[in-house]
């Protein structure tokens, strides 16, 4: 049965390994083991800046964590879900999650419709293409802090937008109106990010087969028909990406409510979860509560992403 000697002498195996030399070694370490050294700084960076803080955030959210002097050792008892209970029963936090929901309901569909529409128009042979592409991208590359200044000037109670609207101007004005503050912030962010999404769609449009358009034309499909039946399904993977990226960006909203509506005003109507996370976690010195908000936000975004992928990307499989 057992033809081999009962014990395989270990030294022999090692000898064979050494005999094959670099071949065997490279089977374990790869042909260019120096690669490990090349990626080490980057891996250390990813571990220190992303992986460790991620675990640390979850840890803090389950403990009574507070700021101490560097090096001080203090007891930080495990408190279970206490921080989560604090967060979930906090009306300001509840409000902020509703707010970001309103934001996404406006921002995401508007982004998809406008960026696909503009990308489709840009994709035709048209004069001034480069000019258009550049002008749509400019808000995306400009700092939000800078652009917020102009929007404040434009949407002020006696700003240019209201002067143009005349008697149609809302009262109280856009950013100080509790019903309009969040939609105005959503509009601002849509405008600011649109150029990036237009470029994504422009790239996706290059992959839609020309034959399909010709076939549609042969079948007598008009412009609108071929847009709905060829273009829209053709760029579906890009739409999934646009929806997901817009959702994640929207969930991270901070600068705009902080500056545009003076810290999430009026009366918390435009406060975002990240803004509340900053106020609780850093301003009020409760990093444990802040972390709990962050963890809940990420869980919410992940759930939403799964739903969106199902809903938008359903024909991908």
């Amino acid at each position, binding site marked *: 049965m057992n033809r081999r000697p009962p014990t395989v002498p270990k030294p022999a195996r090692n000898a064979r390994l050494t005999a094959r030399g670099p071949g065997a070694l490279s089977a374990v*370490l*790869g042909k260019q083991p120096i690669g490990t050294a090349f990626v080490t700084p980057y891996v250390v960076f990813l571990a220190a800046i992303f992986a460790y803080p991620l675990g640390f955030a979850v840890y803090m959210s389950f403990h009574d964590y507070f700021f101490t002097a*560097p090096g001080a050792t203090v007891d930080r008892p495990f408190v279970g879900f206490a921080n989560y209970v604090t967060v979930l029963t906090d009306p300001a936090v509840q409000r902020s999650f509703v707010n970001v929901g309103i934001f996404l309901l406006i921002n995401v569909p508007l982004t998809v419709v406008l960026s696909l529409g503009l990308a489709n*128009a840009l994709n035709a042979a048209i004069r001034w293409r480069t000019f*258009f592409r550049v*002008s749509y991208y*400019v808000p995306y590359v400009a700092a939000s802090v800078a652009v917020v200044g102009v929007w404040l000037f434009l949407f002020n109670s006696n700003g240019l937008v209201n002067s143009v609207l005349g008697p149609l101007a809302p009262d109280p004005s856009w950013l100080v109106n509790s019903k309009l503050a969040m939609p105005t912030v959503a509009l601002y962010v849509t405008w600011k990010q649109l150029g990036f999404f237009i470029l994504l769609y422009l790239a996706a449009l290059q992959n839609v087969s020309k034959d399909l358009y010709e076939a549609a034309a042969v079948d007598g499909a008009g412009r609108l028909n071929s847009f709905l039946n060829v273009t829209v399904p053709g760029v579906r993977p890009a739409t999934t990406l646009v929806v997901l990226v817009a959702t994640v960006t929207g969930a991270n909203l901070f600068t705009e409510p902080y500056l545009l509506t003076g810290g999430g005003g009026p009366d918390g109507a435009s406060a975002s979860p990240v803004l509340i*996370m900053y106020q609780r976690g850093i301003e009020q010195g409760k990093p444990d509560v802040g972390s709990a908000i962050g963890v809940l936000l990420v869980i919410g975004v992940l759930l939403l992403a799964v739903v969106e992928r199902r809903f938008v990307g359903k024909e991908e499989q």
Partner: protein
Amino acid sequence: MRKLLPNQGRFIALLAGAFVFLFPFYYMLIGSLQTEPDPSVKGAFPSPGNLTGHNYLEIDAAINLGRSLLNSGIFTGGVILGTLLFGVLAGYALARLQFRGRSAVFGLMLLIQVIPFQLLTIPLYVMIVRSYGLADSYLGMIAPFAINSIAVFVFRQYFLQLPQELFDAARVDGATELNILWRIAVPLVRPALLTGVLLTFIGPWNEFLWPFLITKQQNLQPLAVSLSNYLTTVSARAANPFGALLAGACVLAVPAVTLFIIFQRRFISTSLDSGIKG
């Protein structure tokens, strides 16, 4: 003939779009030059009697533009340097070297993109400010952005496109990997380096939340932070708050927008490559 008319409609729609996208920037410039803020429709056109450069002096007096720009420059420069140095090494290894754990590192790199940075701000704040005492320091400002993953991805894509024979020949000649990278691969992917620098530039230059959290001393704040402080606190007391604010906004926006316009072709092709093929 049939095609001409709908394209005319498209052209007008695109023109209207361009107006919506560009007007605020034009208005930013006009507003920064007005002696008295004029929010009426007439104010959208430059009127010779209402022009001044005084707003730029005012914002400079309030937040020290030179110092703020220097801080923005050091912050951005540090991130670019880190990305070029370590990002090129990582991108090259991921594209061209076979070593144990390569696919794990690449997987980790993609996975990390999903984590929203904002969730990490609280733990990073605790670590960098409280544990390491790096508040109000350039190092603390740069650390979380030190290597731009998208740039690493771009570098990798470019290195992948180089022909394998090049590397085989150099290895047969006994060149070390560092030599191959430095003398053969890097000179061939110079455009990628420029793209990486441009992509990396807008991140820290425009970043607000992180430097805002860790810099309390005004003389260390990048322009985005000092300008926002002006917006939230000082502007109420200024003679022409909007004028000064918009002057600062122009100074902050101009470098990024100018770089983008000069190198727009590069920006656009990168977004296509990394956005879709990624």
